[in-house]
């Protein structure tokens, strides 16, 4: 067997001269002739008889040739040469086809390279598909967490996981104190963390078990970025003592360059997470320290199974740790790591992918349509080839070869286009899109593109190939016209339908985006900017020191020219992190609040008196906080109008007690749930001069100035530096903050709008092509009709009527599909229903106008046909 294959292979590579076969066959005939002469025939008769005996020379030659292994490769080469020659001759056809494909394939490739990591590509860990995040969630913390008080319970009694590892809840700021100081992000994780993810340090080692014990040696693992930027990738970093937050730690390892933390938060320095079972039972009021837990499922265990198996442990914990009235609010959550990393980006990714595939579909339909037109033009040529013995299969292969060639050329141009588009995407994209910094055109994407182009080639090649000429094509010209047009017309109807879907999706998003942009936020953003001061915790280690710093800074900045108001708050509307409170924690006049349940939460904010004037939030009843209040022992609150209406419907809230504090005022509502979420009721606490008012989250400085923030910002910086030159200050205008929040809808709208535009353009070109071609085919018929008395108006109606039928049919189909598809968009829409009548009417009108224009241009040409010319038309 081996031998046989080797022989075959040899013949594949050594080309045999066809002359040899010729000579062999000639020899055969000569022998016959000689024999016949010997048998007594004349020379002429002998040759004639020999030829009769021999039979079809050409057939024998062909059959012999086809015995050769891989003989068909030669015909592929022929097909290719033939196709290329055709393309060169017919640039009018080739250029638009390649351009169409390039747009379709390029856009799809660019989008795919963005969504690939979100939806498909396996996570960069060993067994990434089995990694999950485990913990409990409640309405104020939607990311899974655990407490040291019950973690050991869960870890020791769990069944579904083969490994569990923990990290601290999130990175915290820390200081590298050296001759080249830097502020870094620090994190803790335990010794099982890296092994569970299947990651080994690129240099050095992981934490040892004894290093995560209490009072163990102080060691750290550092990130590749820190090693590179700060230590110049010096291999001598191992075992070096570095000074973090004022105490030395020994570096034992360096993380790989492309390592990403499962929380996707970048960190520079990692300490061992020291957890003592006994300590955790008493720490933090018996709850233990909060942490994030990740786990690897045992092979074959599904997330649902794991959830079912963990439920009893969770129930036990909830019943022993959570007060009875809050238990309803706590849930067990186990999510795949992919879901946690991508959060809500998945639906956006699917929508983008779906819409770009729709564009690709339209592009392929256009190419198929163009190829059919070309095929009709070459009807006679193909018929002749067919008559000369080319098999149907051979002709189909020729068409497919041409389509594949075009697609690959389109893919090459498309990749170049994708590179450009990707850059635009990355510039445009909001910060919330995960892995975007890693998106790029790599081998995997290139393979996808090639596959895509072949698919597109098959699609656009097979349709025209299905209609290879019959023998009648040699004689007939118009008879076979019908069946063929049915196919092309359905393509156009499909294109119109798909672009209707794209257009209405884009229009809905556009309208939603306008609503987002034009809504009133309830705050003044012009001239307002925020400053975040990151005080190094180890030098400002008491709340008193921190408060003093903040108050000093406030006083210094207040003296600057142009400052209208300055205030501290723990957060700033309309979006981002804002602290919250459960309804169950609310008391009214000393009694627990009895109203609506725990489903949604209140927003809370701890502000200094000038907060309301800095953001220009009107106080609609009562009065705001005053400077005197900050020194008084009397605790006061201001509530939002929404909250007042909810807890004191129809009553005067002023003077009532809420959570043990007196309501002194009612503030107008502000947007506080992000740009597109409904507003939450809000409660403002006074940030006074006592130490406890400055506990918890580091405050943000809100500065309103009559001068441009650009001018004021450097002064603010220098005032803070005058107090402590080492603390970093991060400043941003409120307009920038708001604009960043709108990045996401802007991104979605821009992309979908672009796709819809491409789709519409291609569909209209496709329609134009079909109608023009029909006019060209029917010139003679039109001439006859006119000669028989049809008016130009009749002709216009005849031709335009056909276009209108296609438009109406496609539009109706598209409308149905669009209404169904809009359900998918629902989560992205703000203040627009998925079935917004005005939007659909506008889209239908736009599509109809564009399509009618594409119809009337060729229809007018038909109207101008001169009967005499047309009748002579051949």
């Amino acid at each position, binding site marked *: 067997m081996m031998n046989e294959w080797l022989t*075959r292979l040899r013949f594949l590579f050594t080309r045999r001269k066809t002359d040899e076969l010729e000579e062999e066959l000639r020899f*055969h005939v000569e022998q016959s002739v000689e024999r016949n002469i010997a048998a007594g025939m004349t020379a002429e008769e002998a040759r004639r008889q020999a030829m009769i005996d021999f039979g079809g020379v050409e057939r024998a030659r062909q059959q012999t040739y086809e015995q050769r292994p891989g003989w068909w490769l030669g015909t592929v080469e022929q097909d290719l040469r033939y196709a290329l020659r055709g393309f060169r001759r017919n640039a009018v056809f080739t250029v638009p086809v390649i351009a169409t494909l390039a747009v379709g394939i390029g856009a799809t490739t660019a989008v795919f390279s963005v969504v690939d990591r979100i939806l498909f590509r396996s996570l960069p860990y060993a067994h990434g598909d089995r990694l999950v995040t485990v913990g409990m969630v409640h309405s104020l913390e939607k990311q899974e967490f655990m407490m040291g008080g019950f973690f050991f319970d869960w870890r020791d009694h769990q069944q579904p996981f083969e490994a569990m590892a923990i990290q601290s809840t999130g990175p915290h700021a820390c200081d590298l104190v050296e001759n080249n100081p830097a502020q870094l992000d620090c994190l803790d994780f335990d010794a099982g963390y890296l092994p569970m993810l299947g990651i080994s340090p690129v240099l050095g080692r992981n934490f040892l078990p004894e290093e995560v014990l209490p009072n163990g040696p102080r060691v750290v693992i550092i990130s590749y970025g820190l090693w590179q930027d700060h230590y110049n990738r010096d291999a001598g970093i191992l075992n070096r003592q570095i000074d973090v937050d004022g105490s030395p730690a020994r570096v034992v390892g360096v993380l790989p360059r492309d390592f990403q933390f499962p929380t996707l938060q970048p960190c520079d320095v990692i300490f061992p997470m020291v957890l003592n079972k006994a300590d955790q039972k008493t720490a933090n009021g018996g709850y233990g320290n909060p942490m994030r837990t990740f786990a690897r499922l045992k092979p074959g265990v599904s997330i649902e199974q794991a959830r079912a198996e963990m439920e009893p442990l969770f129930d036990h914990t909830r019943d022993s740790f959570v007060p009875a009235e809050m238990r309803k609010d706590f849930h067990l959550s186990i999510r795949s790591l992919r879901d946690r990393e991508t959060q809500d980006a998945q639906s956006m990714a699917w929508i983008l992918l779906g819409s770009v595939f729709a564009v690709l579909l339209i592009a392929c339909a256009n190419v198929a349509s163009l190829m059919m037109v070309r095929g009709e033009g070459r009807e006679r040529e193909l018929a002749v080839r067919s008559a000369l013995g080319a098999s149907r299969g051979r002709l189909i292969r020729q068409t497919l070869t041409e389509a594949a060639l075009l697609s690959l050329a389109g893919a090459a141009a498309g990749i170049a286009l994708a590179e450009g588009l990707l850059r635009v995407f990355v510039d445009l994209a909001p910060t919330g899109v995960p892995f975007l910094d890693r998106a790029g055109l790599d081998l995997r994407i290139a393979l996808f593109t090639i596959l895509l182009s072949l698919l597109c080639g098959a699609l656009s090649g097979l349709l025209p190939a299905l209609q290879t000429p019959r023998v009648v094509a040699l004689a007939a010209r118009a008879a076979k016209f019908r069946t063929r047009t049915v196919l092309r017309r359905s393509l156009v109807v499909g294109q119109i339908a798909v672009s209707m879907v794209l257009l209405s999706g884009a229009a809905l998003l556009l309208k939603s985006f306008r609503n987002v942009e034009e809504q009133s936020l309830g705050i003044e953003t012009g001239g307002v900017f925020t400053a975040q001061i990151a005080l190094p915790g180890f030098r400002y280690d008491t709340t008193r020191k921190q408060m003093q710093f903040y108050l000093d800074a406030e006083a210094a900045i207040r003296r600057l020219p142009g400052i209208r108001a300055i205030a501290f708050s723990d957060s700033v509307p309309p979006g981002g992190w804002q602290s919250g409170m459960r309804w169950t924690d609310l008391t009214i006049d000393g009694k627990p609040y009895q109203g609506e349940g725990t489903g949604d939460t209140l927003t809370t904010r701890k502000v200094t008196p000038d907060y309301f004037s800095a953001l220009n939030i009107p106080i609609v009843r009562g009065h705001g906080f005053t400077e005197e209040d900050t020194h008084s022992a009397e605790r006061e609150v201001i509530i939002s109008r929404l909250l007042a209406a909810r807890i004191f419907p129809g009553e005067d809230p002023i003077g009532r007690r809420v959570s043990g504090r007196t309501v002194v005022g009612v503030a107008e509502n502000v947007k506080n749930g992000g740009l597109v979420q409904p507003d939450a009721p809000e409660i403002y606490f006074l940030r006074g001069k006592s130490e406890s008012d400055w506990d918890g989250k580091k405050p943000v400085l809100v500065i309103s100035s009559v001068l441009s923030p650009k001018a004021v910002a450097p002064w603010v910086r220098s005032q803070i530096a005058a107090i402590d030159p080492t603390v970093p200050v991060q400043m941003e205008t409120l307009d920038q903050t708001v604009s960043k929040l709108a990045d996401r809808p802007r991104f979605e709208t821009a992309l979908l709008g672009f796709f819809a535009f491409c789709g519409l353009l291609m569909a209209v070109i496709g329609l134009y092509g079909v109608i023009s071609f029909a006019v060209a085919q029917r010139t003679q018929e039109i001439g006859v009709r006119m000669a028989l008395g049809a008016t130009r108006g009749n002709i216009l109606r005849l031709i335009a009527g056909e276009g209108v039928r296609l438009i109406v049919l496609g539009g109706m189909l598209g409308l149905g599909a669009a209404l169904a598809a809009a359900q998918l968009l629902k989560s992205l829409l703000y203040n627009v229903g998925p079935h917004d009548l005005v939007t659909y009417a506008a889209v239908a009108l736009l599509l109809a106008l564009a399509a009618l224009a594409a119809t009337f241009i060729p229809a007018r040409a038909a109207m101008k046909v001169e009967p005499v010319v047309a009748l002579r038309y051949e």
Partner: protein
Amino acid sequence: MQPSTDLLQGTLDLLILQTLAGGPMHGWGVAQRIQQASKEVLQIGQGSLYPALHRLEYKGWIRADWGASENNRRAKFYSLTMTGRKQLQAELKTWDRLSDAIGLVLGRIPEAAG
């Protein structure tokens, strides 16, 4: 006379191999030999002969060399290779079994090969 395309394809291969077992031969010779040996019953049309010869050559069962014919003309001579010889033995066995079996079914005693 009916052309021999009625022959089962495998049978033609067997005939060619058997014919070449007697020594190298050119295509025309193979056709003549089969015709003579079968008492003019089997006429191998060239349309089948040359594809078969080439097929066998590509399989590596026979090989082709250019040489001088009996009347001193350039001709292509085919000869059995080692694999071809083995193949011939195997096919002969198969043939015997097959013809015995068919003979049994038809109720005839197989004639002695002549």
